[in-house]
């Protein structure tokens, strides 16, 4: 129990009459890469949206590192160390890599009521380091994110989460619309999380991608957890059969 970094108990969510989450209880263990699979409408995204502060659960409790928490906004989740990388890019293409890395968390030299002068030197230096740390080779932090490939963008998003010392990284369909080569790169990033002691939650439609980089598989269907096993103890066929 104690090694759970996030544990949710009896989580319920209704969307205008639809019971999308029917009492989900789950422990996310520290340093583990967890693969969350399931069909469209199975409740994966609902669960993730609740953990990342996009939606609120109607019922149930969430504990982070043993403490009961209330996650009302994306900011709350980020402050708890839960970082989410969405299937659509969580990057602004018209802005530079350095600017994107610090969106909403810009270092300032001084500030009044939260608004202040950017510390651009610090942003440039730290973004170079953050990018190098995830083995991403980019020319300059001043390049626009719009210039990067899909895989590189996911890399920058992961670098951002790493830089802000997130404890749990939720990757929502990060391999969608990526080429095989780029997908492998993203899978490599997920494997790399373990070495850095970060818990990864990897959501995908593609079983092969999940089996490639996760330690544990959780399958959801119709708003419930229908399978929860270590990768070594299950197979793609078994997961398919319960979905």
């Amino acid at each position, binding site marked *: 129990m104690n090694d759970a970094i996030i544990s949710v108990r009896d989580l319920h969510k209704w969307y205008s009459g639809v019971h999308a989450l029917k009492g989900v209880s789950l422990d996310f263990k520290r340093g583990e890469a967890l693969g969350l699979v399931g069909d469209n409408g199975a409740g994966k995204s609902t669960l993730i949206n609740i953990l990342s502060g996009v939606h609120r659960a109607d019922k149930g409790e969430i504990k982070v590192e043993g403490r009961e928490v209330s996650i009302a906004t*994306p900011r709350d989740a*980020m402050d708890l160390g839960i970082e989410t990388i969405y299937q659509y*890019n969580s990057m*602004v293409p018209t*802005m530079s890599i350095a*600017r994107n890395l610090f*969106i*909403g968390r*810009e270092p300032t030299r001084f500030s009044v009521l939260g608004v*202040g002068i950017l510390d651009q030197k610090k942003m440039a230096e730290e973004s170079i380091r953050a990018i190098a740390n995830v083995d991403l080779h980019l020319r300059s932090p001043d390049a626009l994110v719009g210039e990067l490939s899909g895989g590189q963008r996911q890399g920058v998003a992961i670098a951002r989460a790493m830089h802000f010392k997130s404890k749990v990284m939720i990757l929502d369909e990060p391999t969608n619309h990526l080429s095989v080569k780029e997908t492998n790169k993203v899978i490599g990033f997920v494997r790399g999380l373990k070495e850095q002691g970060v818990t990864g939650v990897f959501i995908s439609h593609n079983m092969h991608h999940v089996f490639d980089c996760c330690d544990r598989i959780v399958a959801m269907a119709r708003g419930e957890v229908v399978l929860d096993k270590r990768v070594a103890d299950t197979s793609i066929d078994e997961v398919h059969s319960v979905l």
Partner: protein
Amino acid sequence: MKRLFKTYLEKPELAGLILLVLLVVLFQVRSHGVFLNADNLRGILGILPEAGLVAIGVTILMISGEFDLSVGSVFALMPMTMAVLMVHGAPFPLALLAGLVVCAAIGFINGYVTIRFAIPSFITTLGMLFMARSLTVVVSGGFPPLLPIDLPNWLFTSFVGPGNMFRMSFLWFAAVAVLTSLMLSRTNFGNWIKATGGFLPAAASMGIPTARVKIVCFMLCSVLSGFAGMLQVLRLGSPLPSIGEGLELQAVAAAVIGGASLTGGIGTVMGGIIGTTLIRVIDNGLVLSHVDANWFKFAIGFLTIFAVVANAWMRKRAKAIKMEG
């Protein structure tokens, strides 16, 4: 070539600036040297701050991804509010403050209604265009009130500088331009504005209070427009209820000519200023080169379409080049 496109993406106002230089040279030649003489420049620089301040507000709002059609009406309502208050005995500073508060309130309503009901700001501010214009006429009682004679013109409209080249309004304009430019490029709030307009879902998921950012931009836009209206009234000496008509479209044209994107995220304060200057230069230059002045609106219209088409083309080209590289 690749470098050129990159520079263009970082400095979208560059094309406008080049065009401005070309036009100044053209008008200088066509007007036989009258265009750049001190008297004519003084004329242009005297009017520029009024349209320029509005364009700054509209440009920043466009970068945040929204749009304001009510600026022309606010431009008239603010000085009218002040004039009516002063007729009833309010001192100038109090009237000024009240006028600015009215502008801020209109900006807030524009922003709040747009976001709360998730409707296009085009519609909200189109409604406000009519409402604020109507209010202007109503509070004036249909007859422009007389301004007191002891107004602080020395602070807003008097000529200053070498050869009395500038009006005080130009200094206000320059100060606002520098401050807003720095706000966009050097502060975290500027970063939030660009992120909100550049890709709203990403900005929201990173915890930026996007609704608040947009509302602040709406308010800034209204306040700058009202302030500009007051400058014009002080220059003219009378609060006409009809001033600023059509200004909203000129301001949008200025922002777009200066490289701002209608979809948000791209643009600079300098671009809005260059766009406004271009419009003023064309207005003035056509007359000086003995072209029928009725061609003015044609030229602005053509330039606007040309600027957007050119921008769209450049952006597409820039993207294609990046794919290869």
